[in-house]
């Protein structure tokens, strides 16, 4: 059901463009208005969300510790997994964000005959997630060539690396294959395992399908349905220089690609995709394990109802006296 709704939503998005372009001639709407609007919603959505998160304080320092604490000098502490310094926290966060270190820990367990549980390493989710995110990032960076003149030197470098194997004309980008394969895997693992199927929502399938569709339309334009690259570059440059022009020669598939990207941007700040930004603010990861050496202040700290020693002694004075315990008041 969740998959069907996601697929249907995606289909509607695609049909909207086809009808809009082919039948209604809304090139300007889909080519200019929607992308601008999407970027505005994307940026303002993130800013809005960031402000929202930032407005709530971090009352307690609650890192999840994954290694030996810094205590006695002769015990080797774990600088990244139990970071006692800012530098350690930065290291932990960098590894978390760039290499998904916590996911790398992933294990799976199996039951074996004789009531035995066995734990083993499970790296597929980590590998697929890493491949997907890095491919996506490289692909986005490669797209800079459409919206910059002169093209930053990073772009040809990435293209050369990405097209290292020099197969076919135009040369095949490895990331194009990797993103599709990893997305397909991430989709399949949700449907294949009963646990994952149970916990997956429409909001989990939809972005996978959406990004897959974006990747596929991109690949189609590059390798199969040839499009007017020069025209697209002119168009894209027009958009980023705020002098939009809509050339005649652009194929509808480009509009589909662009509209799906716009949809992703709009969808971003209303969805779990916010993890891209939120991960930096997670208090179990971005705080150091120096709780007992540096005091953390809770800005909304307030007095609570307490039972004082005086009240306690008042209640138990006789018994304390009989037991020979020292008293404040005889």
């Amino acid at each position, binding site marked *: 059901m969740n998959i069907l709704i996601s697929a249907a939503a995606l289909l509607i998005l695609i049909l909207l463009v086809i009808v809009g372009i082919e039948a209604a001639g809304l090139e300007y709407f889909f080519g200019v208005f929607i992308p601008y609007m999407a970027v505005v919603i994307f940026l303002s959505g993130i800013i809005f969300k960031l402000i929202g998160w930032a407005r709530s304080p971090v009352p307690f320092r609650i890192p999840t510790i994954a290694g030996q604490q810094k205590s006695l000098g002769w015990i080797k502490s774990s600088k990244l997994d139990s970071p006692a310094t800012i530098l350690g926290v930065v290291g932990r966060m960098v590894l978390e964000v760039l290499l998904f270190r916590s996911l790398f820990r992933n294990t799976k367990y199996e039951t074996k005959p004789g009531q035995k549980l066995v734990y083993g390493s499970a790296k597929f989710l980590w590998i697929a997630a890493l491949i997907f995110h890095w491919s996506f990032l490289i692909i986005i960076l490669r797209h800079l060539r459409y919206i910059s003149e002169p093209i930053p030197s990073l772009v040809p470098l990435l293209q050369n690396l990405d097209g290292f194997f020099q197969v076919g004309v135009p040369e095949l980008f490895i990331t194009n294959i990797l993103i599709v394969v990893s997305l397909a895997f991430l989709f399949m693992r949700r449907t294949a395992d009963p646990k994952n199927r149970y916990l997956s*929502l429409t909001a*989990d399938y939809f972005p996978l399908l959406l990004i897959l569709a974006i990747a596929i339309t991109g690949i189609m334009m590059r390798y199969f349905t040839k499009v007017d690259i020069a025209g697209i570059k002119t168009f894209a440059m027009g958009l980023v220089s705020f002098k939009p022009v809509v050339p005649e020669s652009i194929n509808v598939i480009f509009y589909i690609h662009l509209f799906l990207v716009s949809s992703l941007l709009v969808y971003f700040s*209303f969805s779990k995709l916010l993890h891209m930004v939120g991960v930096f603010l997670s208090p179990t990861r971005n705080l150091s394990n120096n709780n007992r050496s540096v005091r953390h202040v809770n800005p909304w700290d307030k007095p609570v109802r307490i039972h004082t020693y005086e009240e306690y002694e008042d209640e138990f004075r006789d018994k304390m006296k009989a037991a020979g315990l020292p008293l404040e008041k005889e």
Partner: protein
Amino acid sequence: MSDKKPTPEELFSTIDYKASEKDWSKPHIKFKVGTYNHSGVPKNVEYLELPNARKWQPSDDDWQLPDNWKEIIIDGIKERLDKFRSLKIFMDICVRCGACSDKCHFFIGSGDPKNMPVVRAELLRSIYRNDFTTAGKILGRIAGARELTLDVLKEWFYYFYQCTQCRRCSLFCPYGIDTAEITILVRELLNLVGVNIDWVITPVANSFRTGNHLGIQPHGFADSIEFAVDELEELTGVKVEAPINRKGAEVLFVSPSADYFGTPHYYTLLGYLALFHEVGLDYTWSTFASEGGNFGSFVSHDLMKSLNMKIYAEAKRLGVKWIIGGECGHMWRVLHQYMDTINGPADFLEVPVSPITGTKFDFAKSTKMIHICEFTADLIKNNKIKLDKSRNDHWKITFHDSCNPARAMGLIDEPRFIINSTCNNFYEMPENTIKEQTFCCGSGAGLGTEENLEMRLRGGLPRANAVNFVHEKHGVNLLACICAIDKATLPPLMEYWVPGVEVAGVHEFVGNALIMKGENERKVDLRGEPIGEPEPELEEKQ
């Protein structure tokens, strides 16, 4: 588990990971006897001035909630979103990758898919979406939103009291989403409408009034300590001092109250007493702060603060310089991650310095409280105590990292160093079950009751299974730990899943191995059992 306790084989065979139920969003809870806790008794709910004290049980159809309970809960969520960035982030960014799904001991032991940490959090997240997000308000169920109903509330009660706040899931989460944080906050919400369990409420009321969760009054406390002193003299021939409420001592010692009232905790207490005497520590116990454990942390941040406050208050009143804390799990979560914030700054205390070794415990320079394992490890490293390891030779030991010392502090090598310095036979359990990946005993956070036994045995299965591994492989006959709840709940767990394995605190080994000045020849250990030779039944096994 109403009439007849199922055998381990039977219980194990009921675990099914297939998630036969297809859709988690429709709540339906059957309160099966053995898998939930009784409600808080009205007298103690009232004593703590918590709302809606009444006679009720979770299995009742009518929970006698206030008419505007939904409003109270939704307002409560709003207030907490504004106060805790953690909650906002954890509600917004979960991608449901499922990395946490099989990390929870309750899921592993029950197969109930709502015990997957991600789904446990979704139980709240779905309500959050419905009332606090644009997508949820517009798209409703499609966006994974659902309305708050009585059934949802019952589900919260059931599943957020099937979480021991052990934080194992948080370790594996790529964003560090911490179910313990969500559980604490949902329990706060439930308490706003008077939904709670007795094994949290009554210990909190006891701690509030008498200073410890068992409700032991000052003279009872003094009796227990005196009794322990006498017993230690009988065992070792050495008469130790154990001052109580003594002003001007250098150190205040706070331990979980089970140490002086429960078994096998008691042998750990004998270990503390022997050690402090032998090194001549100038210290005092306190009857007012006679509990390190903090049941308040199982209800709300406010009650955690309210109970924890006694430790600094008593340190100040008695005029000590710094504090040592005993072997306890969640107690150390509070002491390490919260105490300085909620009841500090402890500017009336001094940075802890060991009077025996001169070591300055800089890592505790703000809190001014150190863990007894840190204190003892430092003593041993500096050769300040004489130890005869062979006195623990009758034990083959493995060590269970208690959740909070491991994942909230990183207290991992200190207890191991102590065990290795006091015992000859130490064997680690498999690496995915220890240290930061340790499995909970299955009974923490207020769930260690008789009526909840089936769920505890299920939740404790992963731990028991790992113990069984070393029991079969190395003949391990003792499970060491540094947590009072462990000491109370691991023995029945072992008896059920791994018969033949006892449970002990680390300072029991210290007490056994410690060569005391003027002691008699030790023929028995602190349990009064003959030392130096393995038990015959275990020899056969090897």
